[in-house]
């Protein structure tokens, strides 16, 4: 194999990441985990989910860009991976929008919240 080393095209494309960078990311991730567990002790009301998701997303971005070296990757790979989240977003948003909307609409969802609007006999 070593016979083929050298500067030929199509060889030597490895891009090792520096170890301190990897370790640094790991430390930050751990700290963020501690943070997210810690903040759960405070009742932030409806902001809670937002805070939690922001922390999770920061962690995800770190894992994605450094551990998965997306930050140094070919644009096509990045487009595909990030594109998938666009479609996940569409999927969840539309479905959730419908399910929330239909509650206020003419179809109360009766799974639990029974709105047995009785008619007059």
């Amino acid at each position, binding site marked *: 194999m070593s016979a083929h080393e050298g500067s030929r095209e199509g060889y030597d494309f490895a891009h090792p990441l520096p170890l301190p960078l990897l370790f640094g990311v790991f430390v930050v991730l751990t700290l963020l985990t501690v943070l997210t567990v810690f903040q759960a002790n405070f009742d932030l009301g409806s902001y809670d989910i937002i805070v939690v998701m922001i922390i999770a997303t920061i962690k995800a971005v770190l894992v994605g860009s450094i551990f998965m070296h997306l930050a140094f990757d070919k644009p096509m790979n990045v487009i595909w991976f990030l594109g998938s989240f666009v479609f996940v977003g569409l999927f969840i948003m539309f479905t959730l929008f419908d399910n929330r909307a239909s509650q206020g609409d003419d*179809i109360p969802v009766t799974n639990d919240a029974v709105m047995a609007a009785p008619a007059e006999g």
Partner: protein
Amino acid sequence: MLNMIPAAITLLADQTESKLSLFPKSASTFSSDSDWIFHFITIVALIFFIAIVIALFGFALKYKKAKGQQAESQTDHNTTIELVWSIGPSFLLIVMFYFGAQGFLNHRTIPEGAYDLGVDAYKWGWGINYGKFVIHPELHVVAGEPTKLTMTSKDVIHSLYIPAFRVKKDIVPGRFNYMWFKATEPSEKIATDEELEQLAAKDAETNASWDYDARQFTPDGYSFYDLYCAEYCGTNHSQMQTVVVVHETREDLEAWIKKYSSRPSTESPASYGEKLYQRRGCKSCHSIDGTKLVGPSWKDLAGKSRPLASGESVTADENYLRESILNPKAKIAAGFQPVMPSYKGQLTDDDIYSLIEYIKSLGEAGASGGETTAAEGEGQPAEAAAE
């Protein structure tokens, strides 16, 4: 300009009576809306279609060449013309969308004070709830008055579809589903009462159920509109049909309801009691074959000694049964929750008498016979209507 379209198209939609029409009779306020939009889209589509087909076959004939000849032109694009045919038709789409959405919002906006009916869809039949515990498979409404249907399903998804009204709505179990319409064309009474009696007698002889399709009028002699289940629901999905009768006035309708809320003098109390059992929802909590549902089974109930939740026991005689119907919480059978609503004021004395007679008949040897009839009535709503 947009507002002129409906008027222009409605002219076309006027021929709906003819045999060659694309649509069933137009019988609700939605029908005309839906039909002119349909015709509008069809006309637009036809214009495009005819142009495309002329081009398609025209080119195929005109530029047909023997093998080996070169094409006259190798033009590979013309951005202007491509943009024109990409963007141009979009305006027509916007018009279609606009009127479609407008029509749809009418479907969804239920007017205040609409006449309220309950619809219970089950495999495979319909129970239309007219209040006062009158439940009948046929849907009877009043012309010119908005009617609101509150629909539920016991088992799987059904869909209530009245082609003549151009309305359709799925009935999803676990949800209340609403629909409304305003019927415009009242049904006609096309059979006299004597004819109906003869037919009913004939059916009783042959043990046949009322054949709506062949007779084209209901057991009450009205012409009708079809009502289908449009969402696949199993074996007898295609038989899950009933009819819509449009009465001219509210009084007509109430008279019809009243007719079905008391026992005809010719009928035995026990058999009428069975109908009440079917129609008034007793069967959703009380079985007649001994199965334990929400409430105690009626099989072998009458005359037996019953343990109560309080630890005492009572003989299920007529008095106990009557009390349990009118004041269900007075004596609770052991092992059951006090959940039954009172039927005080909802059943006439005769109704109660009929029900008790029916319960008694279930205690005797004839119980199995009662079961069979009940099963039939469940499977074939048409039959129940015929009775």
